């Protein structure tokens, strides 16, 4: 069952209106508008270079927007200092290539950075301890971050994001370099975070794998030719014509008996006419 997360009366966590973005003269995003309700897993799809990552980075001031507006909890992000924004929005980059040997524990502790001046308080330590316990990172806690595998690092980054206690999680291709187990592990963690009704948070996840998106996401946002091609639940968003038009492949759609989510079976590259 696809969970209907749109609760009546609940205010959107993220509202993007008429967002345009370009790197120099190279236009990436054009007239992007969408809203994300609480407890929603939004998968952002599109072919390479369509601006999935660019969009994610526009939502937390990594990319400074010049046209359009992004509101987080009804506040325009331009009005929020970076430190305040970090209490509301957490970002997990695609991969963190660090040469700095630092304990995993300290990486997770950085999630408390927006709340700290100098001293780490008792509550900060407790929060970190709890996150470590819940993500089962105990055995890594005092290993050096850069010695972990890609999947383990990604999990530590998620732990850091959780310690930040945000309401919006941004993920930039969290599973792109992971093995099958880690892919499902990470996405289940994200799904678990957003589907907790008592905690009004949502995740916006740039992804490559359509089938993983279909399985885990509540809504799919497809970017094509700089614009939003569609923004809908997986069973409506993912159909043969969409796949053909956006990805340029012929495919058949199967249905996952268990979850009712579509499974895309790619048959061949689309023939040129």
């Amino acid at each position, binding site marked *: 069952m696809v969970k209907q997360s749109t609760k009546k009366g609940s205010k959107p966590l993220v509202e993007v209106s008429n967002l345009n973005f370009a790197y120099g003269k190279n236009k990436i995003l054009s007239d992007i508008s969408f809203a994300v309700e609480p407890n929603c897993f939004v998968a952002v799809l599109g072919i390479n270079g369509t601006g999935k990552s660019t969009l994610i980075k526009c939502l937390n001031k990594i990319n400074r927007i010049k046209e359009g507006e992004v509101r987080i909890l009804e506040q325009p992000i331009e009005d929020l200092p*970076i430190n305040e924004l970090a*209490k509301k929005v957490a970002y997990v980059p695609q991969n963190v290539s660090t040469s700095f*040997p*630092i304990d995993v524990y300290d990486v997770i502790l950085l999630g408390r950075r*927006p709340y700290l001046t100098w001293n780490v308080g008792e509550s900060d330590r407790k929060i970190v301890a709890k996150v470590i316990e819940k993500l089962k990172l105990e055995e890594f*806690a005092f290993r050096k971050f850069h010695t972990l595998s890609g999947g383990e690092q990604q999990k530590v980054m998620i732990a850091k994001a*959780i310690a930040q206690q945000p309401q919006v999680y941004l993920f930039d291709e969290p599973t792109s370099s992971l093995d099958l187990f880690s892919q499902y592990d990470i996405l289940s963690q994200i799904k678990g975070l957003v589907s*907790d009704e008592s*905690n009004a948070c949502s995740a916006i996840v740039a992804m490559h794998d359509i089938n993983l998106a279909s399985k885990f996401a509540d809504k799919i946002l497809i970017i094509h030719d700089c614009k939003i091609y569609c923004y809908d639940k997986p069973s409506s968003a993912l159909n043969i014509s969409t796949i053909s038009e956006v990805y340029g492949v012929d495919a058949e759609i199967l249905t996952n008996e268990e979850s009712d989510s579509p499974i895309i079976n790619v048959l061949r590259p689309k023939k040129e006419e």
Partner: protein
Amino acid sequence: MWRIDEVFDSTTEESVDLGKRVEQRSKRQSLYIYGLILSTGLLAIFSMGLGSSKSLSFSKIIMIMLGLETPTDIQETILLNIRLPRVLMAIFAGAALATAGTLMQGSLGNPLVSPLTLGVASGASLGAALAIILGFSVLELPVLDNHIYSVMMDIVPNTLIVINTFIFSLIVVFIVIKLGELRGVSAESYILVGIAITFINGAIVESLVYFATPQQLAQLTHWSFGSVRRPDLTTVLFVGFVLTLLYPRLIKYSWDLNTLAIGGDDFAISTGVDPGLLRRKILVISAFATSIIIAFTGLIGFVGLAAPHIARLIVGNDYRRLVPSSALIGALLVLIADTIGGTLFAPVVLPVGIMLSIIGGPFFLYLLLSKRSGTHG
């Protein structure tokens, strides 16, 4: 699913265990810092006991410090006016340069950076060369400490050189920072602009040297050997006072540097740190601290590069501990270099800048190579 709020009422066995391990770890790391403070203190006292005056031995110093023996007037003069300023200046210079190096390596994300990378040294050389060779100074000073002596010897007074080097190194760093910003506030733009400006300044200094008289040349060369034995006690205390004011500001950036070190600019922004602003602040404060030291000591370069790395090998990369540790190691290095330089060919004193590179260089190499695959890294 679980909620983060539950945190406060649950203490499972694992979290207790984790808490213990965190505590143990921070105790272990504090231990290093206490050890460093102790060694610096001991070495400082030991170094106070060394000098051309044989009447003031190590044991005598201890007796005097403990109040068991009253020093004679001459002994007091030697201690207060020669040895104390020397030892204190070594500590301040080492600490300031090492701290500046650590912060700059962190904020620019580059292990090869030292406090001199941004052109501080080239600015200082330019200031010194202008003062010594052209007699040009930014300030007109009516009466100078050793004015008559200077005129007789055709030597530019020291105060003039100090002020000139300080102001010129600051000017150069500000030019570098401004030009770096024009190119975007990325780490590499600062480094590249710094290198370019260093070459330009170097060319100007060499042109000046070409026209210099032998005396001027000698004085410039003498200046460029860093030494902690130039400033008097008042000056040293003044430098110490300024650095004490700066230090809390510097150490405050530890969290932000940790963030930057792990994930770069994007990660820093998403953790609430503005990397451009952080870089600018750190560069300005580091440049100020470096300029103040170099103005009084001449060029001491190596400690700003090596001390941060040695500290990393010992306490790891958490800037909250790295910054104080590397300050202490810097102080220790300069103190060792000055002490050895003062005793090796006594009464000839080898300048601390040279000694640092002679002793520190191989030691630094040894550490880097031996710990290459170690866990401390």
